[in-house]
């Protein structure tokens, strides 16, 4: 399916002065795609040239369209000497290749030079005409949509979630080629930028092919990373989740701008699998399809690098001495759950999902975090027979993850991600995810309705189902604290739950959540090659253990019992290892109340020591109490008898349900062993432990009015207002090399992170009350004594008058995070009300909880029903919202539904209107919002325009003149933001969601007055519409179709 790429260069502005004599510039433009180059005329003596060129036309294969970036170079014409380059613009034309995204790229792009930064702007128009071609053996995958968002994108519906796709490509790093010694830094940087652009294009195309093979049409949770391995080369790898998505037609239909029926037509041949030939042959695992990756497309620079892996100790979490550590992970009970596990294995090698949020009902049970690391040596030895070492490494790790998940009785891993840390020739590969049991009906080809399994459905209470252990308690090799679920009292739950996913929407949470971090440094001797790798792999299990202990302690100190969005990053440096774990702690109502922390001294006879201990103990208890108050954790006081030994009746019932393998004796035994013994005991037997306790207490809570979390949304806060501020903050500290001890190091690192957070709170104080969401810390060790911490997050304001808004915001939340169509929404509420309503509590609204806690010892059943109401109403109204959107096709109204709608929304509506800032009428540059979240508060995403994946290098040889390292990096990051915004605006979008800065590699050489920085960012370009505007539109439409909502209304009242 070849295509025609058309480019028009319109004008330039704010160009730099290139001719000192006249203070002007004679600019012209080179437009290059593949090997074809066009030039515009020279526009003499102007800083604002108007080229208004003809349409430059490139006739190209769609394979090239996917791989190659459009390269636009602005030059200054010089009659006597060589033309001087002003700068370049790389435009990824991928968004034009799938139909319902952008149709044209048109706008002002910053002209970027790797040495001088942004130098003026250029106005460009790009279009693509695709010709249909039913080539059976095509190499391209045009039409497959890519999303960075790790949930099903709004305005789409997941028909099938196929599963894991991965790919990697390798090349030599231009920076390390011999030619780099003779070319300019600029040429070298540009070669690198171009190469990475090419490689990511190729990678995306190959992933697309795999998706087509799986008969999917989209990749969700697409995560692409670069490994800069120095002399060993450059690896670009990507993972994602293949899906078949259906566009929800209604929301977009309101907007004239997005309404392009002709485009929809164009899509069909691309998306539907029948049009390509590979289909029938694909029973084999996808993994094998990666065959000749190194030989295609890079005809010029044939990769010469090969890795010989040194499999020095895969340091997984199952390390011998620490078997007890993550007990959720290591319980090896394998409960066969019907036929579901093997169904996955048949077709997919790795049942992994990069998604972190799921359609309702998708996630059935969560086992716990599974992770695997392995230390490898990057080797330069030329060995062309083994081009796939990298692939093998990852396969090994994934295999390990898979077996961990199996050990937890889970057949899938969700919230899956992979990362590397490289220092010289040592590389740590890490993978982690959350073992889970999924509802198979989303995963299967074929009809959605056909495969509902009754057995699974009946065990699926909404608010707590995912907490129930997926493994068999009988076969647990370790004493685990299991209790009956505090919510439904039917099934067992662990006392603590760690996950890498976002909090499920329907989870019942008490109070608010908070960011919890574990920080850790370990010194290591400098060593070479294998000795180094061995040293590192020996250290890893200790670090994992300590990180886990810290997390556990801090969680208990906060009075919470579950972690979401857990991300453990281990960074390797020359002489140290750093561990940073971030997660969002919450109190899950289904899980038992966490016990306190008990301090035990070693020498109980010493009086003063004793006193000290009791003093510490008091401090800890006070902190826990304070935190409970701060985060509003007031679980209903249920007397010990009720919790400790579950009431016989429900137990019998549960045994009936889970008839297969339970013997009542053992259950009782387990129950007895649990109980009051759950207090966490910290033994202070040496200074190390003392330090630990101290560091526990030094974590300062955010100032009042601030909350923070690293998940998409803050549990317990629902009423977001529309003001958002995304930011990136970078800090580098230099350690004094004199007395580096582990303790000093830990303290430095801790202070660094804490101070950084404090600075953020201070800077954003004008937004109070607000919440820092998706706080993402990245640690790197650029040099011996340097620690670099990069934070990207978004601050979102919220409304204090929470109670009034609960209903509305629930609606929002579910709409934002879930995309299900009419039919499915219909199905779910019905299932839920018929099935779970009588016995299972739903997520409580805040006011219910408050009343419950003030009225301690309120019977559970009563609580359940009262709670039920609000949540169910939410479902209904969320569904009604959807109907509202669809309503333009259905004209008949009904009083009943209208009433419900009005009950649900007016509060929020009014607030959004009040809060929305006045439109910036006189601004010439359109505002583009950026957020690491998958949604924009107070707004509805109506269209996805394509993925933004950009890589920039900036270098300077006049560091001091540019304001030192801070000035240099500040300007560069601002420029990166600007370029992202410009590309989004040119695609016709007004926001980037799921934005992430995947890499920020900063190197400096102050003595030479030099610095270099590489930044890689990605996200989804979208069009959003303010809800206030949308509602104006939709309220004009009659709300219709009473049928489905009536049953809902009756149940709720």
């Amino acid at each position, binding site marked *: 399916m070849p295509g025609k790429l058309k480019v028009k260069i319109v004008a330039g502005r704010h160009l730099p002065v290139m001719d000192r004599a006249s203070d002007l510039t004679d600019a012209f433009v080179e437009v290059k795609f593949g090997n074809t180059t066009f030039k515009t005329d020279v526009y003499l003596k102007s800083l604002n040239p108007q080229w208004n060129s003809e349409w430059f036309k490139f006739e190209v294969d769609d394979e090239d369209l996917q791989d190659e970036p459009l390269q636009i170079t602005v030059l200054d014409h010089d009659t006597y000497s060589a033309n001087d380059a002003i700068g370049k613009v790389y435009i990824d034309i991928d968004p034009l290749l799938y139909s319902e995204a952008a149709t044209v790229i048109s706008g002002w792009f910053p002209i970027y030079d790797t040495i001088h930064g942004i130098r003026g702007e250029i106005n460009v128009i790009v279009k693509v005409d695709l010709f249909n071609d039913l080539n059976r053996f095509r190499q391209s995958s045009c039409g497959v949509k890519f999303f960075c968002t790790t949930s099903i994108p709004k305005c789409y519906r997941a028909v099938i979630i196929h599963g894991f796709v991965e790919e990697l490509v390798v090349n030599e790093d231009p920076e390390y080629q011999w030619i780099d010694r003779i070319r300019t830094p600029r040429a070298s940087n540009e070669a690198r930028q171009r190469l990475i652009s090419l490689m990511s294009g190729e990678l995306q195309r190959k992933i697309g092919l795999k998706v087509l093979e799986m008969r999917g049409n989209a990749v969700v949770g697409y995560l692409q990373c670069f490994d800069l391995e120095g002399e060993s080369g450059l690896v670009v790898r990507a993972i994602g989740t293949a899906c078949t998505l259906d566009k929800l037609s209604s929301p977009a239909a309101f907007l004239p701008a997005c309404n392009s029926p002709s485009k929809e037509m164009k899509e069909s041949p691309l998306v539907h699998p029948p049009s390509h030939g590979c289909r029938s042959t694909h029973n084999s695992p996808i993994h094998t399809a990666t065959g000749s990756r190194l030989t295609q497309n890079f005809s010029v620079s044939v990769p010469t690098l090969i890795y010989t892996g040194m499999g020095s100790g895969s340091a997984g979490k199952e390390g011998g001495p620490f078997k007890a550590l993550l007990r959720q992970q290591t319980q090896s009970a394998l409960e066969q759950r019907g036929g579901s596990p093997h169904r996955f294995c048949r077709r997919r090698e790795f049942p992994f999902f990069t998604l972190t949020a799921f359609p309702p009902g998708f996630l059935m049970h969560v086992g716990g975090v599974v992770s695997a690391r392995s230390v490898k040596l990057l080797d330069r030895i030329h060995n062309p027979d083994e081009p796939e070492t990298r692939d093998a490494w990852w396969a090994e790790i994934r295999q390990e993850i898979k077996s961990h998940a199996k050990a937890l009785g889970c057949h899938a891993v969700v919230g899956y991600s992979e990362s590397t840390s490289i220092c010289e020739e040592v590389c740590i590969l890490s993978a982690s995810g959350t073992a889970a049991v999924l509802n198979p009906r989303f995963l299967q080809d074929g009809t959605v309705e056909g495969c509902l399994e009754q057995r699974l459905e009946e065990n699926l209470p909404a608010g707590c189902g995912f907490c129930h252990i997926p493994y068999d308690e009988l076969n647990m090799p370790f004493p685990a604290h299991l209790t009956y679920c505090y919510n439904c009292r039917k099934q067992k739950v662990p006392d603590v739950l760690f996950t890498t996913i976002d909090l499920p929407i329907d989870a019942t949470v008490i109070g608010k959540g908070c960011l919890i971090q574990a920080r850790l440094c370990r010194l290591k001797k400098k060593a070479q090659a294998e000795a180094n790798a061995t040293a590192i792999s020996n250290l890893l299990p200790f670090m994992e253990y300590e990180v886990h202990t810290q997390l556990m302690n801090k969680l208990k100190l906060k009075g919470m019992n579950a972690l979401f969005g857990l991300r453990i990053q281990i960074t390797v440096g020359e002489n140290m290892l750093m561990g940073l774990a971030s997660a969002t702690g919450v109190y899950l109502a289904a899980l038992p109340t966490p016990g306190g922390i008990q301090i035990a001294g070693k020498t109980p006879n010493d009086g003063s020591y004793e006193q000290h201990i009791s003093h510490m103990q008091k401090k800890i208890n006070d902190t826990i109490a304070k935190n409970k108050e701060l985060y509003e954790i007031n679980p209903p006081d249920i007397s010990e008898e009720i919790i400790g030994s579950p009431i016989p009746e429900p137990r019998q019932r549960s045994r009936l349900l889970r008839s297969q393998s339970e013997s009542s004796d053992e259950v009782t035994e387990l129950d007895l062993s649990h109980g009051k013994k759950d207090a966490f005991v910290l033994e202070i037997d040496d200074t190390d432990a003392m330090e630990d306790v101290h560091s526990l207490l030094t974590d300062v809570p955010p100032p009042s009015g601030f909350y923070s979390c690293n998940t998409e949304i803050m549990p317990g806060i629902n009423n977001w207002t529309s003001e958002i501020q995304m930011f990136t903050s970078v800090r580098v500290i*230099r350690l004094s090399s004199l007395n580096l001890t582990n303790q000093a190091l830990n303290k430095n690192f801790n202070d660094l992170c804490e101070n950084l957070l404090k600075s953020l709170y201070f800077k954003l*104080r004008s937004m109070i009350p607000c919440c820092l969401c998706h706080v993402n810390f990245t640690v790197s060790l650029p040099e011996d004594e340097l620690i670099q911490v990069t934070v990207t997050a978004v601050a979102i304001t919220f409304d204090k008058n929470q109670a009034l808004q609960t209903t509305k915001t629930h609606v929002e939340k579910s709409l934002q995070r879930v995309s299900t169509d009419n039919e499915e929404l219909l199905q779910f509420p019905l299932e839920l009300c018929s099935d779970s309503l009588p016995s299972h509590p739903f997520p409580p609204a805040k006011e219910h909880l408050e009343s419950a806690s003030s009225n301690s010892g309120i019977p559970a059943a009563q609580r359940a029903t009262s709670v039920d109401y609000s949540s169910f109403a939410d479902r209904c109204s969320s569904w009604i919202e959807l109907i509202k959107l669809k309503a333009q096709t259905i004209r008949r109204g009904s009083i009943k539904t209208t009433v419900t709608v009005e009950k649900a929304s007016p509060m929020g509506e009014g607030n959004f209107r009040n809060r929305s800032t006045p439109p910036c009428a006189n601004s010439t540059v359109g505002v583009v919002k950026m957020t690491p979240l998958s949604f924009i508060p107070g707004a509805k995403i109506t269209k996805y325009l394509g993925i933004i994946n950009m890589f920039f290098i900036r270098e300077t040889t006049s560091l001091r003149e540019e304001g030192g390292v*801070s000035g240099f990096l500040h300007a560069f990051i601002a420029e990166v933001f600007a370029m992202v915004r410009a590309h989004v605006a040119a695609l016709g979008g007004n926001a980037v969601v799921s934005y992430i800065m995947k890499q920020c590699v900063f190197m400096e050489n102050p003595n030479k007055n030099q610095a270099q920085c590489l930044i890689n960012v990605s996200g989804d370009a979208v069009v959003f519409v303010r809800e206030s505007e949308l509602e104006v539109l939709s309220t004009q439409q009659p709300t219709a179709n009473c049928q489905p909502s009536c049953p809902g209304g009756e149940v709720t009242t």
Partner: protein
Amino acid sequence: MTSELDIFVGNTTLIDEDVYRLWLDGYSVSDAVALRVRSGILEQTGATAAVLQSDTMDHYRTFHMLERLLHAPPKLLHQLIFQIPPSRQALLIERYYAFDEAFVREVLGKKLSKGTKKDLDDISTKTGITLKSCRRQFDNFKRVFKVVEEMRGSLVDNIQQHFLLSDRLARDYAAIVFFANNRFETGKKKLQYLSFGDFAYCAELMIQNWTLGAVGEAPTSPDSQVDDMDMDLDKEFLQDLKELKMLVADKDLLDLHKSLVCTALRGKLGVFSEMEANFKNLSRGLVNVAAKLTHNKDVRDLFVDLVEKFVEPCRSDHWPLSDVRLFLNQYSASVHSLDGFRHQALWDRYMGTLRGCLLRLYHD
């Protein structure tokens, strides 16, 4: 542990108004931090000095990067690097171009040259405004001057268009540019009692009536394209002003003028006798000022002359402002009744403006 690098970049550029003010006022980072500490911000927010330091540095760096754009405000609107809401952009520009009364009085009417710039440290010591701030203000004056110097059309409009200033501030800049261009002396000791506002008021009147632009404003004559500028006084007009001399040179005319004024004002003026005694001196003063305006030197001394020849004599006789107003009205109007005097229009153009200026200048 030393911080090597410490930055914060928001998708929307954060602007802290207080820090912006400190930066504009030319304080160093450490001074600014000290001042912020003194403002009690640490207590309010529970932040530490280190946090404040980092925050201040960050804002200073941002302002430093923005400064380049602020030199040509339309660039700030079109640039893509900093995403700033329009209201904030306006605030940045307005504050950047705002100036201190004390400073502007020092340089008003001076040539905006390197020489003057060298004297800025003296001005800084004298006014207590930091040298950095003085430089910024001076450079602003000079930059605006350079940009609008050669432009046609309304001075205020040009300034507003190229610097996106508020109406008020654009008018002030017009006055500054006008004064700098005509080099009016404003620094003499006897002029010290006058505020920038007084001068700006006069400048506006003069721009409206005495410049080439003022003539061009009348139904746009096609040949006015030569230079319809607001910055230069209408040379022809200044030449013509010589004709007014007969008002004082011709003894009969002067007597007649006096009697007309005295008749009209008798009983209405508290200081009638003083007026009557001083009439000829005052009239000579005002007319001679007009007649001398052909020389650049005398143009520069316009305000000195006005104060010396009119304001001071009246003030020494304790004329109330209302009497000055009555006198000037009558003094200008009576000329129309002088049959032997033909330059009525010229007189009105001169006196209309001068009357406004004098009334403004007449205070303690």
